[in-house]
């Protein structure tokens, strides 16, 4: 008759699905022909084939873009790190009991969500330029993080709210302060619900870094455009650029899935 006892401690099974990135492989996709494996093997094959059998122009293109790949990589990693910080602060701000903190965080999210990323990039890049002299790479990273910080803030908020209040009450009744409760009890649990959607954001962010090429940041896309507009080899160049993006994206999505598995491992029953 009283069976709710066992359900009461079930971990929250909230799935927050925000995907517009490459699918993050799930443990259930372990089979030899998962979509991830197929795309990854395919991309590598295409790359290898083009480089070996059509070194002209593909090898030339491939030699032209490495510094672009490095920039794309740098912008992505730095933006992810910073966006996580912004996201956490925003997420906490959005659930804050302080009226003003809450209002500031919500307004930030509202504004960022209402303005296209490309416009934000231009705006932050050039507006910032008028006020302080920040180097272009940093400006690009800041712009990306400000935008993705807001998106991630929403994910953090949802993830934190998904933790049952009983957890907070248990921690508070032991004597943990609000902050300690968040740090020791809520966030470590929230991570598990948060990571899949945040992983999606990572991948979306990686792809969106291509927008910074518009600011003249010499990323993968810009290097490709430079090569193409100089050599008139548009098709070949963008084939190469697309394949390289795909490979990077697939690697990142694999990393995220490994992280997810790690994180969920110790609570598996």
């Amino acid at each position, binding site marked *: 008759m009283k069976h709710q006892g066992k359900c009461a401690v079930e971990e929250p099974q909230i799935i927050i699905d925000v995907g517009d990135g490459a699918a993050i492989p799930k443990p259930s996709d372990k089979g030899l022909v998962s979509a991830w494996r197929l795309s990854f093997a395919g991309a590598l094959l295409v790359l290898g084939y083009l480089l070996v059998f059509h070194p002209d122009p593909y090898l030339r293109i491939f030699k032209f873009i490495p510094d672009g790949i490095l920039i794309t990589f740098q912008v992505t990693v730095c933006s992810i790190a910073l966006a996580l910080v912004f996201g956490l602060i925003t997420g906490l701000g959005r659930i804050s009991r302080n009226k003003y903190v809450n209002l500031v965080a919500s307004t930030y999210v509202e504004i960022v969500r209402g303005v296209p990323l490309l416009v934000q990039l231009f705006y932050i890049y*050039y507006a910032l*330029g*008028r006020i302080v*002299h*920040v*180097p*272009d790479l940093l*400006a690009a990273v800041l712009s990306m993080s400000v935008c993705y910080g807001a998106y991630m803030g929403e994910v953090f908020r949802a993830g934190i709210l998904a933790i049952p209040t009983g957890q907070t009450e248990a921690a508070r009744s032991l004597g943990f302060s609000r902050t300690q409760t968040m740090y020791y009890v809520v966030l470590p649990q929230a991570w598990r619900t948060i990571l899949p959607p945040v992983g999606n954001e990572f991948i979306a962010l990686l792809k969106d870094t291509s927008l910074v090429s*518009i*600011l*003249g940041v*010499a990323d993968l896309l*810009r290097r490709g*455009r*430079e090569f*193409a*507009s*100089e050599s*008139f080899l*548009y098709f070949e160049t963008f084939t190469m650029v697309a394949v390289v993006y795909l490979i990077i994206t697939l690697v990142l999505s694999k990393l995220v899935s490994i992280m997810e598995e790690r994180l969920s491992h110790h609570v598996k029953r």
Partner: protein
Amino acid sequence: MVKNFVLALMLVAMTASPTLAKTIVFATDATWPPMEFVGPDKKITGLAVDLMEAAGKEAGFTPEFKAVAWDGIFAGLASGKYDAICSSVTITDERKAAMDFSTPYMQVKQALVIPKKSDAKCIENMKGKTLGAQISTTGHFAVKKSEGVKDKSYDEVGLAFEDLFNGRIDGVVCDDPVAKLYALKKDNYKDAMKIACIIPADDEMYGVAVKKGDKETLALINKGLEAVKKKGIEKEILTKWLGTAE
């Protein structure tokens, strides 16, 4: 209903209006003042536009301008999206291999613009510095050719000037008419920038590009350009836009 019908008729009449003149669609990256740019009335205007209009009158064609981003402008010509490119295209051997060019209509040089407070003389003093230019323009090529200088390419030259103004890059290289306009005439910039030098190189010629083998279009444009030059109309236009006629 009737109203709509009349409207539709008018539209058809307009597009099919029996001007005997052939319409030539020119692609232009209208971000290159004073050569070609979008004016306050949102129409594409500039020296090159005036020139083509004058040439059209002489040779009997109607020029129509279409705004296209620079880094895809040659691809669009190859795929037949427009008849010609009139967008301050410098005639180079590489480009000649890919398309045909009209007789040159203007001679330009590459100018280096730097902050007013900089004491660099020319591009050889810019080692270790970053110079901006519009993507795949001859200015961009000049930067890439200079050893020890880092290049940064932009979709539009105006963005390069803004970055120079904001201190993110150390100089901009572009065609001299454009450099003069930005560095000497624009309100904010003219107090902050100067033209350091003209980068020594072979003279550059602007030409109108047409699809390889498009003799008909090329002949019309050449005919118009020649007449404009002969009648002195070209001088008028140059004086109007550049202040001088050479």
